[in-house]
């Protein structure tokens, strides 16, 4: 089993509903966020090209954060989801520094926090909060090992890219282009 997510940059309108849905679902402390929307503008007026990306932890197959964690608090859960065990985390910041996507932050309670792919919902067969809330249905989530899952189906038909693959992280968050 390998959970993954695909975000359609052509359908995303940058409304940030995914960000709010995540903050609400996961009780993210005020002033913090686990996902965010990046707007990339290319070219000079009037030849402009716009890309909108809803970004979050890439749940990398080769996660630098899991490698550098001195206590084993950062680890792979079932399906390759990268999570942090709060009472093992010492808050040293090594994983925050190691993440090329800056996807982690230090929770006001001390431990390190990040996107969990809403593992508590996924285990019940629900979609992650951001995916469920997206008004344009631009996000696809599922098991890559299952050829019938929404994410497998869409990756079969569309071109896609990952972020900073050259960092050697093997990210599992795909952007349809």
């Amino acid at each position: 089993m390998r959970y993954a997510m695909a975000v359609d940059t052509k359908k995303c309108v940058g409304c940030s509903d995914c960000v709010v849905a995540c903050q609400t679902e996961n009780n993210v402390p005020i002033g913090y966020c686990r996902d965010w929307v990046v707007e990339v503008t290319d070219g000079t007026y009037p030849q402009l090209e716009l890309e909108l990306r809803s970004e979050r932890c890439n749940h990398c197959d080769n996660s630098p954060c899991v490698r550098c964690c001195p206590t084993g608090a950062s680890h792979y859960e079932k399906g390759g989801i990268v999570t942090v065990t709060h009472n093992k985390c010492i808050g040293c910041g090594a994983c925050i520094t190691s993440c090329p996507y800056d996807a982690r932050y230090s929770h006001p309670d001390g431990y390190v926090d990040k996107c969990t792919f809403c593992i508590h919902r996924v285990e019940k067969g629900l979609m992650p909060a951001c995916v469920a809330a997206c008004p344009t249905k631009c996000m696809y989530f599922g098991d890559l090992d299952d050829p019938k899952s929404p994410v497998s189906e869409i990756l079969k038909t569309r071109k896609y890219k990952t972020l900073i693959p050259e960092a050697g992280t093997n990210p599992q968050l795909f952007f349809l282009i």
Partner: protein
Amino acid sequence: MREEIIVSGRMNPNIDPYLHIWHWQIPLYLFLGGLAAGILFFAAYFVIRGKEKEYPTAVNLAPLIVPILLILGLFALFLDLKHKLFFWRLYTVIRLESPMSWGAWTLMIITPISFIWAALNIRQVFPRWDWKYKWLKDLEAFFVKYKVVLAWVTIFYAVILGVYTGILFSAFNARPLWNTSILGPLFLVSGMSTGAATIILFSRNHEERKSIARTDLLLIGIELFLIVHMFMGFLASTQVQIDSANLFLGGPFTAAFWMLVVAIGLILPAILESLELFKFRIPYYIPPILVIFGGIMLRFILAYAGQMSRWLY
């Protein structure tokens, strides 16, 4: 023209607009750890070479401050932790993939070793020191007897500690400025140089001072060589590393790095130490103070600049 902005307003404290999760505690610890490694290295080296008589400060006096340095360093590390009450989790596992894990275990070994060195030399400060209990006296006799073995173990762990202070940074490929294996040897040599400087500061023996100053001069030369190499490597590398080197080549850290680290911390003491060799009279404490200052600055500037360097996407 390409513009990338986060439109959902991400402003995670210490992450945005650029990473600053490691504050003064980490570079201070790296300096103290490197200094401790340097002092222990010289003490052990002169014991192995059988030159305890020629280098009384290096072997007998300087190791006395190492436990204090390491404890201050460990305390700084503790202050850096955000989930402090769980610090003991470090010592429930050994994770070889994580430099911080084996660094923590190295400290667990080298701190007691530094206490042994300090205990063996305690009579330098308290001439009438008495260990009171027989088993402590036996223990002292044991370590005096096997001092050369102790020195070999010490030199091994001192080098690991010195290199580790650099590897802690260089293991992060997410921070291009740190992601160079030269950082390990650079921090080791810088730590040894500050260790030599501390020995010169403490020494009352002219011959010893002169000899250590000569060693220090060599170490400064190696350090300059490694810094030049580091920049050559960056500029011949990928765009992310070219950008990270530009933090020092016209970017916000240019003046601080070249003035405080290279000019005041390396070249100036090197010139002064060379002049001393040619019998110019220079107050002996000036070059070592500059070297120590440069060592602190090197770590602070690299720690802050490294966190600002990043991948582009």
